[in-house]
């Protein structure tokens, strides 16, 4: 077995998930200027819902679809009924709300499925594909293809379609977009909906490979944020940054050892912060 190939394969799989999470964070950030700390909960909700429904005997595809719907609905409700009525709050207050929501989701998931890891069987069973001395599970191939495919589709949607351009215009200047006839609230809702769906989809494909527990959300938010921040909050960049972060994690865990994945992504965050600080000349002050 070739270690390097295996590291790349696992990096591609996690990278696909990080790309999906990062692009979701970018979407919500660029429409509402808010880092949504409850974003990773879409992953936890999706994974836990699918596992619980399948255990309860719901047919596979029904359970997976419900999981994605649950994650999407969570984001829509969060934006429509929690964040939007408080749009005039200072950003730090809104960030606290999203953190509180993440906390509550955690508590509810713990009540629902308990403290143990849960999982469910793969969509694509069968022996892994042998490739250049590495083993790639069929589900993993599906994950890589669908993850990067969806992320690319969203990036294309943003760059090429009218709705997508409206979305980015809202990001640049919500008031001006509103005056030009863009339905800003509808666009924001769309962004939150897409972000939620991407989180749910990433969960239903990845969870059979690694399993999930009630507290997976915040650590997924952390990873998504790091990829999104490396990308400077650009959709295309988020895909590349997600891929890069996944590969880094795969290589480091393979060659240096899986001490824990958290120190690795945290180290990436530190490097990013130090790099960004060079550009800031006079302290972390926003412009007038």
């Amino acid at each position: 077995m070739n270690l390097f190939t295996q590291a790349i394969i696992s990096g591609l799989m996690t990278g696909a998930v990080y790309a999906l999470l990062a692009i979701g964070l970018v979407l919500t950030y660029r429409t509402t200027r808010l880092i949504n700390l409850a974003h990773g909960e879409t992953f936890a909700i999706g994974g836990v819902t699918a596992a619980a429904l399948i255990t309860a005997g719901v047919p596979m595809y029904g359970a997976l679809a419900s999981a994605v719907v649950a994650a999407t609905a969570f984001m829509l409700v969060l934006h429509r009924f929690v964040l939007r009525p408080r749009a005039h709050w200072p950003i730090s207050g809104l960030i606290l709300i999203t953190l509180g929501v993440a906390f509550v989701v955690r508590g509810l998931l713990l009540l629902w499925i308990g403290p143990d890891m849960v999982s469910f069987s793969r969509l694509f069973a069968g022996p892994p594909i042998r490739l250049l001395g590495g083993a790639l599970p069929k589900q993993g191939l599906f994950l890589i293809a669908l993850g990067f495919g969806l992320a690319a589709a969203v990036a294309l949607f943003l760059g090429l379609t009218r709705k997508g351009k409206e979305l980015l215009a809202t990001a640049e200047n919500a008031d001006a977009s509103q005056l030009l006839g863009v339905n800003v609230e509808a666009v924001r809702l769309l962004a939150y909906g897409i972000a939620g769906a991407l989180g749910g989809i990433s969960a239903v494909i990845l969870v059979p490979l690694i399993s999930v527990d009630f507290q997976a959300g915040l650590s997924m938010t952390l990873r998504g944020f790091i990829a999104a921040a490396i990308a400077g909050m650009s959709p295309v960049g988020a895909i590349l940054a997600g891929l890069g972060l996944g590969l880094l994690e795969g290589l480091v865990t393979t060659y240096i050892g899986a001490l824990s994945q958290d120190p690795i992504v945290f180290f990436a965050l530190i490097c990013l912060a130090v790099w960004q600080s060079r550009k800031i000349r006079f302290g972390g002050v926003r412009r007038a």
Partner: protein
Amino acid sequence: MKTALLIIAAALYAASPYLGVLPGWTPSVATVATFIALSLIGMNLIFGVAGMLAFGQAAIVALPGYVAGMLEASGMPAAAAIPAGILAAVAAARIVGEIFIRLPGTYFAIGTLGFAFVMEGVARAFPSTTGGASGLMLSREIVLGELGWYVLALATLAAGIACYVWFLRGSMLRTLRQVRHDELAAEVLGIDVVRTKLRVFTVGSVFSAVGGVFLAHYVGVVVPDSAGVIRSLEQLAMVIIGGAGSAAGPLVGAALVQWLFVAAGEAGRFEVLVYGAGFLLAVLFAPEGIVGLVRRGWAGLAPARKAAPISVPATPVPGVAAVRRSGICLKVESVAKNFGGLQAVDNVSLEVPFGVIVALIGPNGAGKTTLYNILSGIEEPSSGRVLIEDSDMASVPPHRRARHVGRSFQVARLVPQMSVLENVAVRADQLGFTSEAARLAAAGAQLAWFGLGELAGRRAAELGSGYHKLVELARAAVGEPALLLLDEPAVGLAPEEIERLCHFLTLLRERGAAILIVEHNVALVARIAERIFVMNQGRIIAAGTGPEIMADPKVREAYLGALE
């Protein structure tokens, strides 16, 4: 009255575990809650007062326990291991702060969150040194009875609250409120924002570490969970539920939450949800927490307190004498600034002499505000030089230019929750007065000089936007800086307020200040400015006196469109 009530409340709290009124509130629960409250003073300072989103503070609370425990295991006496642990935790906090505080707030939030993830992971990953998942046992050297520990907890908490109050004395609270509300205005007023935030995070982390190391030794063990993200959020929840930003908040939050869990029996699975729901409900509906609710209820019961009139001296501040200066104050030498492909400022040169009002006019988007940002140090010019009083400003950050430069903003940037006097005092704080009384006197005198003395005690939020502009002008002129940069000082002013503005500007000019104003009110500009520069599309297209400018065809074209 208030002091007596506070003493009674403190005595009641101290005696409460021995009264037997509250089920489950035993001395050992009270000791734990009291040590937690001590550690939460740090979170309260960092988050509650300074508004910084520190989401990983549990790591700073648990770290000294781990360090001390490892040192004790290698044979060091607890008396030496405990200070070493505190030192290590504060050093770690300082490093995290140095890395993340320079960046926008979200980075600090995510950075501290990540730090807690890492600390918890590391504590689990090395069972031989950290005890792994089952935790690290600590020295049993400190032999104190139940009452002894409780008294120690009360004494350290009392000392902690005293230190908190002492830290926020004088101008510190004002400075932190200014930084929290508006970092850019704070920097332009002369506050070193990064250094201030670093200081608060470091000092707050001292409280976290001291409370944490005592708690760990009382309980006898530290576990990985206690360093992690969930615990960090629980600590944040306790501060918010108790009352963020008030001295009693941490104690109220810690005692209430700890007691609720004991009283409810084995909370088990519900614990995360209860904390989460408490946190969310407090953030959504009672942002000032229980202390805030009590305070509001009390204010409703008690007869409305009359605001004490603030005595304002009728004469200008002694020491701020008219400074007769001559020569050129501000020299801008071929300054350019481009954002990507956009040339916002293109080869601009101008001079502002002392004792002269110079105006800069031009259509929207001409580059005037960008030029102001370059002059006050917020933006770096792509090329060219800015000289103020003959010294090159290239590497001088905004807060160090503040002594020479007073700036007002297009939309006045005051802190609405602070009084007018406090808002003006923020600039006086930066000018080297040694006592709080002197700073407030200087601010009061400045207001009186501007004829705004009767507003001193009013909250900025209560005033109209016209007064905001005048107060901001008074603030910018505290200490009579050599250069005043005023961004549309007359916008939103009523005609009689504009008269007032002209009067003050003329007075300041007579006292020798160099004044540069950006203004759209051409009549006003023509009346008070000796020299007018017209900017369009980043360039200066005309310069001269009022009548000369009005007659210039290029200016009319820029304003009215092509006249061919």
